[in-house]
């Protein structure tokens, strides 16, 4: 019958469907989309990360009981050059004490504006496109002076998204990255990459153009960095209508050629007969104030730093003179289904020790992973691996005597990424991992703020010391390696 009311049958269908759903839920799998592992040579993966994860994940359990005990324990610092920051708890660890040499250089710069301070900021995709780093750089240059974006690679996967300096390069460069190459043809540069102009029939070129950053509206003292080779080659620099031809003399581990001593808007470099000469990139700085190099590499866990060649790095350091090395990693080790990060701590300890061997006396700052959300029961929440990872990062920061920024708590702690994504206007992307321009600016500001808090405290302590010297003599220590909680120093 067509005219009969069908309401109760209709209700029955909807209600029975609910019963059927309960049945399906019992017998069918929980997940509809299989999480397929992508296995391809074209996917960017940190090979060292995969290796050490596979090696270590089978071996042993975590040491969470120890960690809980550690949480409230006092960390007492020994004085360095008569300066001693107050003691801290593990929970709240910042380690300003280990940034004293950097703070000292900043202090000198504040006294003598013609001095310079250099920071290398190593990071993963969070800092792609100069996000976060450009904001740290701007903050420092605003206060301490300095112009220029620092060292820039020949090319990177993210160069198209970088606004602080625009770079284009020909497709015929042969590039190797420390991310997935263990034994490069020539040692990696300070940026973790090495490039070769091997194409004999076509020119291999790169061009740079100043971006729109407040303190980088021109390219100051552009200088080419290249490595050692048995062959020689040539490079033509094209600035506007002028072409300057220079010979490459690859005699030392690291060599430099100044493109021009002027500030230019842009230039192009054509490499001719330069095969087998390792090319690293260009440095742009005005020679005074603060300069911050962005060495971002998406997919990086940070561990590949341990395969750096310390001798080559020392040669880089002789030219660039680093005062602070920042290591900002963690995002890429969150998705391994583990909460035990001792394997990662080991790998990163090796990386930090390599930094120490490469840049003797430099201050090191570890920045933890930011908050990241994952779906649990239809709701986005802080990934359960974030807190254990932050703890592991704090531990190796402490053990290697590095300063530490807990980016997870700094941005708001539990559930903060969801807030940053949902906010209007949003400050992070829908992947619940990466910040957008606006969020990166906020993060850059927060990082600078924490570093600066330490610096202001340092100045107070320093003044106290000066006052003390006037009263009597102080004890001078030559070594900074001493700490009451843990004494674990590893040497290569």
């Amino acid at each position: 019958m067509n005219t009969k009311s069908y309401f109760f049958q209709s209700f029955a269908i909807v209600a029975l469907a609910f019963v059927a759903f309960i049945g399906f839920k019992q017998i069918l799998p929980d997940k509809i989309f299989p999480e397929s592992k992508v296995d391809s040579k074209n996917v960017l993966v940190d090979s060292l990360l995969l290796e050490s994860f596979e090696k270590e994940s089978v071996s042993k359990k975590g040491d969470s009981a120890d960690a809980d005990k550690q949480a409230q324990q006092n960390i007492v610092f020994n004085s360095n050059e008569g300066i001693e920051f107050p003691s801290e708890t593990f929970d709240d660890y910042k380690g300003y004490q280990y940034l004293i040499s950097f703070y000292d250089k900043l202090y000198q710069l504040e006294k003598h504006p013609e001095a310079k301070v250099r920071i290398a900021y190593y990071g993963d995709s969070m800092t792609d496109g100069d996000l976060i780093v450009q904001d740290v750089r701007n903050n420092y240059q605003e206060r301490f002076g300095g112009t220029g974006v620092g060292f820039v690679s020949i090319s990177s996967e993210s160069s198209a998204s970088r606004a602080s300096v625009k770079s284009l390069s020909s497709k015929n460069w042969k590039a190797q990255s420390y991310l997935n190459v263990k034994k490069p043809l020539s040692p990696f540069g300070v940026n973790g990459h090495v490039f070769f102009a091997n194409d004999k029939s076509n020119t291999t070129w790169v061009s740079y153009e100043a971006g729109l950053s407040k303190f980088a509206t021109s390219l100051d003292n552009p200088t080419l960095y290249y490595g050692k080779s048995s062959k020689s080659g040539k490079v033509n620099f094209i600035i506007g209508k002028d072409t300057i031809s220079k010979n490459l003399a690859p005699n030392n581990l690291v060599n430099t050629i100044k493109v021009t001593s002027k500030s230019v808007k842009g230039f192009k470099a054509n490499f001719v007969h330069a095969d087998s000469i390792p090319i690293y990139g260009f440095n742009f700085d005005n020679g005074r104030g603060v300069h911050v190099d962005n060495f971002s590499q998406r997919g990086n866990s940070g561990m590949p730093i341990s395969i750096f060649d310390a001798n080559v790095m020392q040669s880089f350091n002789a030219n660039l003179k680093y005062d602070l090395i920042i290591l900002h990693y963690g995002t890429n080790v969150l998705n391994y289904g583990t909460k035990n990060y001792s394997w990662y701590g080991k790998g990163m300890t090796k990386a930090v020790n390599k930094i120490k061997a490469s840049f003797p006396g430099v201050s090191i700052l570890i920045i933890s992973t930011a908050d990241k959300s994952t779906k649990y029961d239809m709701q986005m929440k802080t990934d359960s691996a974030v807190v254990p990872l932050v703890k592991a990062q704090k531990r190796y920061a402490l053990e290697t005597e590095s300063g530490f920024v807990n980016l997870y708590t700094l941005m708001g702690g539990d559930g903060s990424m969801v807030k940053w994504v949902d906010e209007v206007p949003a400050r992070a992307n829908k992947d619940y991992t990466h910040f957008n321009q606006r969020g990166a600016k906020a993060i850059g500001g927060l990082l600078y703020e924490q570093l600066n808090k330490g610096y202001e405290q340092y100045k107070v302590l320093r003044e106290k010391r000066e006052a003390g010297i006037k009263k009597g003599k102080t004890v001078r220590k030559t070594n900074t390696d001493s700490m009451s909680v843990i004494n674990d120093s590893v040497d290569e």
Partner: protein
Amino acid sequence: MITIDSINDWFVQNFGALTLEQVKGWFIYNPEEKLLFNTGLFLGLFLVFYFVYAFLRKTFYLRLTYVILFSLFFYYKSSGIYFLLLLLSSVVDYGLSQIIYNESVKTRKKIYLIISVILNLGLLGYFKYMNFMIVTYNDMFHGNFELHDIFLPVGISFYTFQSMSYIIEIYREEIKPTKNYIEYLFFVSFFPQLVAGPIVRAKDFLPQIYQKLNLTKADVNNALFLIIGGLIKKTVISNYISVNFVDRVFDTPMSYTSFENLMASYGYAIQIYCDFSGYSDMAIGIALLLGFKLPANFRTPYKSVSITDFWRRWHISLSTWLKDFLYISIGGNREGTFAGFLFPSLFFFGLLLWGITNSAESIIPLVIAVGGIVVFCLSFLLSSKLKQTMVTNFNLFTTMLLGGLWHGAGAQFIIWGALHGLALAVHKIFVELFPSKKESNGLSTIWKFFSIVLTFHFVVFCWIFFRAKDFDTAIQVINNIGQLTFEPDHWQTIILGYKNVFLLMLFGYVWHFLPEVVTAKMKLIFDKTPLIGKAIVLGFVYWIVYATAVAGSQPFIYFQF
């Protein structure tokens, strides 16, 4: 043996322990958990609601009041205290409509109409466009007005338009007003279409209130078929591909390859269709289960052979609303009015200004600006009925500009509307200059295929502006796609990397382009399935929705080529 305890255990195992807090949560507004049709909570509430509704089917005011209360609760769950705004605006609109109906002097009638339009648009304007206007003003004149902290009440764009249609139709004497406020409130607050359309017209809906409530087997079949399709489109296809692919690419287009940008654009086209039409289908289906027939809102729009055709198939309730109440009000194809000339002129003036200010850096913006103006002028200068075509095109362009702005407060929506307005004008002059011959042969099939492909790609191109968070991002996506090179092995790697996403996209497009014969067949089979079979099918779809909702997001993949 079944004991109370064992039942309890089974319940806890399957649904989790139920706490008082959770039960409270079902009834209290939570801005983070909106009551959408595709949530489990809605299903539960609806089941209870529907059971009682079936018993009330023979009553009139009791039933209306019952539905109104549920609708208000539904709205409260989505917008909190702002359900009072819905009530308030309905009281005002009802009052004004009574006055207009009872007023016999034409000019006074008009004054009351204008008051009501101003009130409605003012409300919409404040909640939706206030901050946009402040930002625009601050940018243009370096002002620094503070932004207002405004909550956008869910569905305000829909119910404002719906109550405006009621008043205007009374003014035009197309309908008689409802007998009392209850009936009017039922029409405005009817929950199936309250928050996301379709925009139901008073003259289509009101007569249904007074009819004897009836629900046939065929109605239920249609309703369930729509709900099943809607659930799959909205929660499976649209949600999955947006979270796992499209959003990421549009967040930072320069971090992705050209092919990924292109696929994200195609992906967004199917995503937004599945999102809009899926939710509409669910609304129409649910209304039908209650015995109310709402008109179809989407008719496979990407099968359109021209942009004019597209607007007859895309979001039909909106485009007819705009045609009847905006386009016709500003003169339609009859006369030019101040409003009809104002907005296009402002737009082209702004475009020209943008081209000139950027001409120092690049000549392209100026070329685009001048090009746009020339094309628009040619669209009526070439016409044999110059004056009429000019008026029509200006009014059409105004409609599309404002229609674009209706979708959201942002310049990108204006650009999107302008592109469509321009395309409509171009299509009209094309048809006038090259009228189609009425013969069907191989050539016309090829021509039809070509027209569909061209229309589809134009629409996808416009969606880029619609989706991108700002103009620069849209340009980045377009530039990036422009650098696409033919590298099938790279493409294959990317497709394998996002296997689930691409499979769903393919499924969405295949479904969309299925010949109508096939969909009709599917419907026929569904109709013939016994009651229990339908329940099992629907239950399986519930499970798909559930399993998709709990599926974790796809981890990041970085390609290097």
